[in-house]
């Protein structure tokens, strides 16, 4: 079956799960879900369920990983074995390694690492339940958890993906849309400046479609940022 053959959006522009093109799935945020960590955040986004925990700043071991002028971020993205329809064998794979790397680089752009020379900050991202867009949820949850841990940052990172289904550009693809979609554009936005620290894309988008997906992401990021700020003020979103 070719891409685009499965009807994912009807003539009125309503998606299978009832959303309009620009709508984001329901999001809830809870802080302090890993009581033994220095900061933590659980983010539920659609059926995605992600936990991020922060340990540190702490002494960097072994010594060769230390940096004289800044802290190092040790970021791990991992999917729990029961997080997907088919069980995942435990352990690092190429996909989780790549996501860990780009997530670390996104967070390094906002964490004020120079305040903690020779130390290490551990960022643990665990995907408990996956339903498309886990890298975006993981990155957003990690930035909220870092703020919860009291680590100085220049901004939060809010990440969201848009894509294309049945030749229509839509925001925040769910599992079925991701499987049968024709493009996926995840972005990590700094809400206060509009800058980007994370960007990936695969698929096929015309210049116009690309702009539309870009704008959806930017708008969604600003909305999700409000949720994150509210969670950081009160411990959870929604109340």
């Amino acid at each position: 079956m070719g891409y685009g053959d499965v009807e994912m959006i009807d003539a009125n522009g309503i998606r299978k799960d009832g959303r309009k093109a620009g709508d984001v799935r329901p999001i809830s945020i809870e802080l302090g879900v890993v009581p033994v960590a220095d900061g933590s955040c659980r983010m539920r986004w659609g059926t995605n369920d992600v936990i991020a925990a922060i340990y540190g700043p702490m002494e960097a071991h072994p010594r060769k990983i230390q940096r004289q002028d800044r802290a190092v971020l040790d970021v791990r993205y991992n999917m729990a074995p029961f997080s997907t329809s088919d069980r995942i064998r435990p352990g690092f794979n190429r996909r989780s390694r790549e996501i860990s790397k780009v997530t670390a680089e996104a967070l390094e752009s906002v964490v004020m690492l120079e305040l903690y020379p020779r130390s290490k900050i551990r960022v643990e991202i665990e995907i408990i339940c996956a339903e498309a867009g886990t890298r975006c949820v993981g990155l957003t949850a990690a930035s909220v958890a870092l703020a919860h841990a009291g680590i100085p940052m220049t901004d939060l990172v809010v990440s969201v993906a848009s894509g294309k289904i049945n030749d229509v550009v839509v925001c925040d693809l769910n599992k079925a849309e991701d499987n049968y979609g024709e493009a996926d554009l995840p972005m990590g936005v700094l809400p206060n400046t509009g800058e980007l620290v994370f960007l990936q894309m695969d698929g096929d988008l015309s210049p116009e479609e690309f702009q539309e997906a870009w704008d959806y992401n930017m708008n969604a990021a600003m909305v999700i940022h409000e949720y994150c700020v509210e969670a950081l003020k009160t411990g959870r979103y929604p109340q």
Partner: protein
Amino acid sequence: MSIPLVPQLLRSHLRELAQNDQRLDSRTQFEGRDVEIEVGILANAEGSARVRMGDTIVLAGVKFQTMTPYPDRPNEGGLMCMAEVRPVSGRQHEAGPPSAESIELSRVVDRGIRESGCIDTSDLCIIPGEKAWQVILDLFAVSDDGNLFDAFALAGITALRNATIPQEKFELGEDRPLVVSKTPIMCSYQRVGGRFIFDANGREELGGDERIHITLGDDNHVHSLQKGLKGAFTAAEFTELMEEARKKGDELRNMVHALEGGN
């Protein structure tokens, strides 16, 4: 993992407390932390549970795969139990291949469930000699503040008792519940400050000595035992712990069964 310097101070503090029949968090010797159990919390697992005991939080998820039965048991499926203590669950847990501690953890939990005979492996046969169900129980630590053993065992049996065999997904007929006929319960004791206590928290584990894990079935039959860490205990001490485990086991088992009544 580096050995912390604190334990000598912590150990003498724990010894003082024990002499006055006290604990760090004002519990009595055989008092456990409050236990919360939730079931069906993982949308992509065929059975799941979350257990919280104080600041210790664990998840259990059940998945099913098809397997070729072992040649000597052509009419039986299998059970696999895997515990992961990933670095998310505590600063002392480092990334890397599974530690000896986490392997011991998953094997002790596995034995308690397996040996209780609560899962009838012949019920997992699909085509004799060719195809059978393999039940995979994955245990995942979210937050480790001590006694992962009991938390894993409790989450594990609860998740299994709430699991559904996904026959539709594999085009093998209608979904059906996994039959789990018993409820093995593990109770763990650790020598802290010279005496055994139940349900050690993270600081008690850090300043404690040997531990004993007892898994009992519905009829109080013993299904698994494990002595861990350095230290020696007497027969009289063990008799007392068995007595305590029977009482505590009944209490926890009733909790698991009460959840099912509510579903």
